[in-house]
């Protein structure tokens, strides 16, 4: 992975000093709360319901074992011994003291980590596919360009005070795993006529107004990505709405202008900077790409005999391999998901002890490197098949081997009302209640692939819109309710789910999910996944079952009247 040089390190250290000074001036009253707010947000520091919340960046999801150990020690020393991985390659601490944050940043800086622009109305952390560089279906490794983009976004002087936050995702695979259709800018790496470049998608986003992005340029040679992004950002910075925070994302501007008119403005802007100094040089690409070379793979046979033997005889090992390992470019290697979705634990949460265990596993089995996925799991990207059984046992001992990746209980879930000020409703207890209901592994495997995503409010940090089953916390007369959507999906055919009907009380949610699953099981053809059945039979059978015997709409109003 990318290694900082003296300059990269200097900038991060200068950032720590800057923030230390800002905190001191704020405490001394020289900076007002309003003046301090964007400064602390651009260092990942929120002031929340119970305590501040602090968000650390894991740029494009990559970190090494030393960094993971630092996260563990920071979580122990300055927090309550755990952290939460979000859907955007960040680690959140829920209980730090504001006064400690400069010290935490200093600790992080020692291992080339930071919290730069993890919040606020600025260019945020770049996200990508957790299997970048190793995926069997990869066309081009996105990481060198992700790093080049990271550097470009870092302290960009013109775009530090945008109308709203700005998120970029980049993907280099046939199957998009980076939700690129729902980012402010989504980039698809591809090859055209022997040239590497991007399809540039703009104006996607989840949140309050979920919109699928639109293509502004079918093909942009990679050298131009910085100048082109600058053109997009400049148009947005100048013309994006600033009168209403809910209408300030670039998606609203793109919708208002129409994608063609927007693209015209971008192209006109770009004409001035195209081929200018910010055009990426081959030398720079090579310098950065050299950090992402393949590790020293052994030449192995595609199938390890002992491994094949164990798979045959140990069902629980087989289950884990089935769900939590993934095809790899190099023969005899796989990528492994260490699940942070153990039943009964807040999805994405990890204790300091687990962080240390994970760091050890990375050192032992995966060249000392780790990834964070947007599904809030940890990935060991380069594991020998022959090591899987040992790895599995150690992961199990650390509570990191729940074989539910891609299954119903591998839920994506935001922190919700337990921690987040913006929440309408709690999300973690809903996830845990559903996990408790579906605690039978055979049943889970029988149900098969299904994404269940939960957000505590329409900000959609839990990506509920693109869950096959999406759950959204809503506020109904001060009570917590949940709206359910079906049929959403990520990937190349990314689509928003459809609302099934009126929302449900928290206690009803396991039953509701149960009924949805039953409809699927009763209707599925052989080999149909949930989504296939849903696409074939539509939403009505689900709707009918879920609301069977329930008064709603007019009938419910009448009932209330009568009561």
């Amino acid at each position, binding site marked *: 992975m990318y290694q900082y*040089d003296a*300059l990269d390190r*200097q*900038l991060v250290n*200068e*950032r720590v000093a*800057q923030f230390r*000074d*800002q905190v001191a*001036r704020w405490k001394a009253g*020289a*900076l007002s709360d309003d*003046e301090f707010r*964007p*400064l602390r947000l651009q260092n990942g520091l929120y002031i929340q319901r119970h305590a501040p919340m602090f968000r650390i960046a894991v740029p494009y999801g990559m970190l090494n074992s030393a960094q993971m150990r630092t996260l563990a020690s920071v979580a122990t020393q300055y927090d309550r011994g755990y952290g939460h991985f979000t859907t955007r390659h960040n680690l959140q601490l829920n209980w730090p003291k504001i006064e400690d944050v400069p010290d935490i940043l200093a600790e992080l800086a020692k291992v080339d980590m930071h919290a730069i622009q993890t919040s606020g*109305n600025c260019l945020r952390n770049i996200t990508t596919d957790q299997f970048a560089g190793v995926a069997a279906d990869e066309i081009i490794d996105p990481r060198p360009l992700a790093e*080049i983009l990271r*550097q*470009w976004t*870092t*302290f*960009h*002087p*013109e*775009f*530090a*005070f*945008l109308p709203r936050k700005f998120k970029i995702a980049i993907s280099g695979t046939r199957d998009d795993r980076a939700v690129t259709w729902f980012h402010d800018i989504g980039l698809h790496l591809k090859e055209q006529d022997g040239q590497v470049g991007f399809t540039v998608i703009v104006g996607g986003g989840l949140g309050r107004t979920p919109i699928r992005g639109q293509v502004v340029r079918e093909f942009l040679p990679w050298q131009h990505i*910085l100048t082109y992004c600058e053109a997009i950002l*400049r148009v947005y*910075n*100048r013309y994006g709405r*600033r009168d209403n925070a809910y209408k300030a994302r670039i998606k609203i501007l793109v919708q208002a202008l129409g994608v063609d008119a927007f693209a015209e403005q971008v192209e006109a802007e770009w004409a*001035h900077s195209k081929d*200018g*100094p*910010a055009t*990426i*040089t081959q*030398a*720079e690409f090579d*310098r950065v790409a050299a950090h992402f070379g393949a590790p020293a793979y052994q030449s192995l046979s595609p199938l390890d005999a002992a491994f094949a033997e164990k798979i045959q005889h140990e069902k629980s090992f087989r289950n884990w391999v089935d769900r939590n390992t993934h095809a790899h470019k190099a023969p005899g290697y796989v990528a492994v998901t260490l699940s942070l979705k153990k039943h009964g634990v807040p999805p994405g949460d990890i204790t300091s002890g687990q962080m240390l265990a994970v760091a050890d596993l990375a050192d032992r089995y995966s060249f000392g490197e780790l990834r964070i996925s947007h599904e809030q799991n940890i990935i060991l990207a380069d594991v020998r098949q022959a090591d899987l059984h040992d790895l599995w046992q150690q992961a199990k001992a650390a509570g990191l081997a729940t074989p539910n990746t891609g299954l119903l209980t591998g839920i994506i879930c935001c922190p919700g009302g337990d921690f987040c000020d913006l929440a309408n409703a709690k999300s973690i207890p809903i996830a845990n209640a559903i996990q408790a209901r579906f605690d039978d592994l055979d049943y889970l495997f029988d149900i098969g692939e299904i994404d269940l995503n939960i957000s505590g409010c329409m900000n959609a940090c839990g990506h509920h819109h693109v869950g096959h089953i999406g759950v959204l916390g809503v506020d109904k007369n001060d009570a917590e309710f949940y709206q359910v959507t079906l049929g959403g999906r990520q990937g190349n055919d990314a689509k928003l789910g459809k609302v099934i009907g009126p929302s449900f009380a928290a206690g009803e949610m396991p039953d509701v999910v149960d009924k949805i699953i039953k409809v699927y099981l009763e209707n599925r053809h052989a080999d149909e996944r949930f989504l296939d059945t849903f696409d074939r039979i539509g939403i009505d059978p689900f709707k009918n079952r879920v609301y069977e015997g329930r008064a709603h709409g007019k009938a419910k109003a009448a009932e209330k009247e009568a009561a």
Partner: protein
Amino acid sequence: MAQLIKNHSPASDSWSVLQLAEGETPETVALPAGDVIFPLAVWLARKAEIVSCHKRIGLLLQPDEPVEAVAGDLEYFIVIAVNFPKFVDGRGYSTAALLRQRYRYEGELRAVGDVLHDQLFYLKRVGFDSYALKEGKDPAVALQSAFATFGDSYQASTDQPQPLFRRRA
């Protein structure tokens, strides 16, 4: 009074901004003598008149006023003030970048309005060279550290047109 910082030191300010009182319009407002910073609308309405009676001319741009409107006039201005009604309104950064980089404006470029310490580094980068620091903000703090927060920068901008990757050893 806002304290002006220019060439990295406190400076006195000879300029005043023409404010339109209630009922006055750009077309009818009296043009005062002296070093005056004219709002864009007044400049556009009264250009010939202003040029005939003022040797030193200043222009004020609001965040939503496009620099393109004065792209052909820049030689007239000794100072262009870009207003930041709120420091979180970042449009003025693009205004400055365009003035310097695209239209090659070389006169004084002044940040006015809600100008605080912690934005000075970015303001300098995009091409501002004078700053009317918000009233109550200590110029000493600004001068001590704010312009040197970072020793280098990744991106190309006005103060360093070559991105770091073209300069990296």
